[in-house]
């Protein structure tokens, strides 16, 4: 382990520990901020697991997030909590698998559009089912889960996401994903099973998103499809990951922290002009920080770039050969 990796690891553990400690020392406001930060960190990092290396930009984040939240709303009271979470993650994985099988042959913009629509589609199907077969469209979530417990669960999930991300980068699957991002045709010719790799990574990231959705669901006591499948979440996750830099595991985090704080500030101080300011921020990011904060930091800190791309699964591959 290099010094840099050690530093990153220490910083990561420190941040997670700080997040886990907020319920003990912070106010209710600090706790809700911690939930927001952790939720978006987990979502944006999970998003980048698949979309970062492959370059397939997914706007379906909220589809899986909402599936997780809805699982809690439907079976949250009937089953033990651990089982509910497992079910949510499993459902997210399964839906992503089915959706992925049919859509991952779409490339570029087609994929973006379809994932954009997927959340809407699932939202409408849920609304339709609830209205016609369940009687009412909204559901109440009365669970005995405190804010503090949500913070701790989110901390754990965030840690898992980062761990999985680190393992993925070092695995054969991670290498295949990066190859797909560079040139999918070449990857195919090298004998990589691109479809399986994409499917697996997509479903894995979806399962994590569903898990996050399930964990934060008790925050809302009332849930309906417009809340659970709010498309703004997908966009927020996307812009956070891109601001931070989706090519690095820690990249999305660098985008989540400033943007969550900014959104909070803007919506508190300029509720009427929130949308305009959000748009201006967005444009500023696209024009001024095209490679994300992580790219910017590396340019100025002068990280030595490996001169050769890593060979297939070397014993100790450096990260960031994508």
């Amino acid at each position, binding site marked *: 382990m290099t010094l840099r990796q050690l530093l990153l690891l220490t910083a990561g553990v420190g941040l997670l520990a700080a997040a886990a400690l907020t319920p003990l020392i912070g106010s209710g406001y600090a706790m809700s901020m911690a939930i927001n930060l952790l939720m978006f960190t987990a979502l944006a990092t999970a998003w980048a697991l698949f979309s970062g290396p492959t*370059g397939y*930009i997914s706007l379906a984040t909220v589809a899986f997030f909402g599936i997780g939240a809805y699982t809690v709303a439907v079976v949250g009271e009937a089953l033990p909590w651990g089982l509910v979470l497992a079910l949510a993650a499993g459902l997210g994985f399964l839906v992503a698998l089915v959706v992925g099988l*049919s*859509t991952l*042959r*779409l490339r*570029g*913009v*087609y994929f*973006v*559009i*379809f994932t*954009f*629509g*997927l959340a*809407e*589609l699932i939202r*409408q*199907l849920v*609304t*339709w089912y609830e*209205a*016609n077969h369940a009687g009412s469209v909204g559901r109440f979530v009365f669970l005995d889960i405190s804010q503090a417990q949500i913070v701790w669960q989110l901390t754990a999930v965030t840690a898992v996401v980062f761990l999985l991300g680190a393992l993925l980068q070092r695995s054969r699957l991670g290498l295949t994903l990066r190859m797909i991002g560079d040139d999918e045709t070449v990857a195919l010719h090298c004998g990589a099973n691109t479809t399986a790799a994409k499917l697996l990574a997509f479903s894995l990231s979806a399962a994590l998103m569903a898990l996050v959705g399930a964990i934060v669901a008790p925050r809302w006591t009332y849930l309906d499809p417009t809340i659970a499948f709010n*498309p703004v979440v997908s*966009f927020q996750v996307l*812009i956070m990951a*891109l601001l931070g830099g989706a090519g690095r595991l820690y990249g999305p985090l660098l985008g989540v922290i400033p943007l969550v704080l900014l959104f909070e500030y803007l919506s508190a101080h300029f509720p*009427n*002009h*929130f*949308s*305009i*300011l*959000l*748009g*201006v*921020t*967005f*444009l500023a*990011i*696209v*024009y001024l920080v*095209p490679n994300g904060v992580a790219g910017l930091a590396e340019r100025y800190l002068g990280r030595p770039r490996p001169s050769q791309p890593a060979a297939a699964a070397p014993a100790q591959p450096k990260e960031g050969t994508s």
Partner: protein
Amino acid sequence: MPILDALLNGLTLGGMYALVAVGLTLQYGVARIMNLAYGECLIAAAFAAYWLFSGLGLSPLLGLGLVVPLAFALHWLLYRLLLVPLVRRAKSRAALEVDSILATFGLLFIVEGIVLVLFGGNYYNYAYLAGVLDIGGTPLAYNRLLALGFALVLGLGLYLLLTRTRGGTALRAVAVDPVAAQLVAIDVRAAAALAFALGGALVAASGVLVSMFLTFNAAMGVVFTMKALIVVIMGGVGNLAGCLVAGLLLGFAESFVATYLDPGLTIAVNFALFLFILIVRPNGLFGRASA
């Protein structure tokens, strides 16, 4: 008669979708700008028409004469000032697509925010040509018919412009291959700016027409962007006839499902159709195989 209802509904709905999508097919097909703020521009034009009609008493058809040139100029400036830096920076077409998605996404919020500040989040509508034509017991509003007619006229005019004029041929050349177009002395950037502005003028026109019969509010832009994207991709990017056919197909599918199955399932049908066509014909109904 339910079947006649569904047919006529589908026809007017489909006409509207085709009309709404025509501008995007130019912006995306020629200028290569995936404009996510497209629906917001439509809504902004609808609000402008509403303001002209209820504030100044100007009929929407006269309003077209004001709103459309203004939208053309604004979109031209937008491309020149905001999007050219992205075009210059982009290494490949895919990179430009991603950048333009992100930039126009920011634009989406700005336009939506301006409309919100000016008009608030309420729903608006006004009555113009709201009379009803009775066809075999099925009511059909004049303003919807007018929109359908305009869709056909605009589509035909644009088709003639693109296929019968020199400038139009240049636009098509840029759509096919921007690099090769440069080799035959076409100013690609000017052509792209023209296509983007033309698309902007078309979306403004459809916004004004749609405002005559639809209740709209500031947050509805996304719905139109979505529908327009689906129509454009289904029809084959940059293909006008495809746009019309895909729009009508979508309109009929929606109205038939709403009539015979359940009005709650229309979006599901949208995406099922979209996905089915993309899987069977990845370049759209009329797309060329090469892309």
